[in-house]
């Protein structure tokens, strides 16, 4: 039974990915669709960042992740390279957890 659930879930996840990629070009070329599609990753990723930073399941939680992401934002303002930003975020969260 678990195998059936695993395989059906995997198939469903794949079809969702494929569906987005398969939207016909003539629809993508409509100006409204183009504007929305261009903004979609910004909205989805910004929402994802907020949810990953501030929630656990269906609860809002403030913990070491917020400190890590806060430091990452400071690093970005100071124009640190990508890898430095990510490493600082992880190190900050790890240190905050160690102390707390």
């Amino acid at each position, binding site marked *: 039974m678990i195998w059936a659930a*695993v395989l059906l879930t995997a198939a469903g996840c794949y079809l*969702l*990915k494929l569906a987005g990629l398969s939207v016909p070009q003539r629809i993508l070329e409509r100006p409204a669709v183009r504007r929305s599609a261009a*903004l*979609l990753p910004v909205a*989805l*990723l910004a929402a994802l960042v*907020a949810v990953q930073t501030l929630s656990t399941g269906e609860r809002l939680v403030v913990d*070491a992740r917020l400190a*890590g992401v806060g430091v990452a934002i400071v690093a970005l303002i100071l124009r640190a390279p990508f890898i430095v930003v990510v490493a600082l975020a992880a190190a900050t969260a790890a240190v905050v957890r160690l102390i707390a």
Partner: protein
Amino acid sequence: MPAPKTEQYPPKSEQYPPDTRQTIVRDAAAIAVATGAYGISFGAIGVASGLSVAQTCALSLLAFTGASQFAFVGIIGGGGALVSAGLAALLLGTRNAFYGVRLASLLNLRGLRRLAGAQFVIDETTAMAVGRRTPELARVGFWSTAILLFSLWNLGTLIGAVAGESLGDPGTYGLDAAAPAAFIALLWPRLTDTRSRAVGAGAALVAVALVPLVPAGIPVLVAGAVAIAVGLRRTAKTPNGTPEPATEEAR
């Protein structure tokens, strides 16, 4: 630096050297390593939830979308029904369909390449593809992240599934802050115009407000609706240039 969006930051070219294949692949490797370490955690949780090593690895190979996989094994581990586990996973996987809509014109995949590329349409590959100076660099971002992350995610899953929970919680190493930090860093250069900033901030607020009210996965999808709503408004058209001048035109 011919990309028009960087014109707002004249000094930017010094501190932000333009993306090249090498820098993109290097960043992809960093994301893949951090995510692969998270794969170890997924493998351990999968087995602890009652899945076999093969079932846990099959999820990483075939479903290959982290949030959905964690929800799936989390619900089964908590004694939930298989149907609930599958539905929660699909709900969380739905955002990949929206990523696909954006990536469709950027990657321009046809036939077998589309069937293969679809498997890799996830948060990380999308974040690494959008906002590049040229469609070619967007494809470098997508494919380098796809190949490296897929490899390390599956290797990590196998290690975690075999080794169990002895390797510890990824939170100990701050890896749960690394993922959102990476996404912010990838979004950052795109938040140059007021509309992108407003959409990003609005989406984040909507998602956080909805977290306690609706099942996991829905907050991010509703936030995506913010983008669609803004895009549909004709009056919201940018007066000079679309948000992504360089990548929009060439297909």
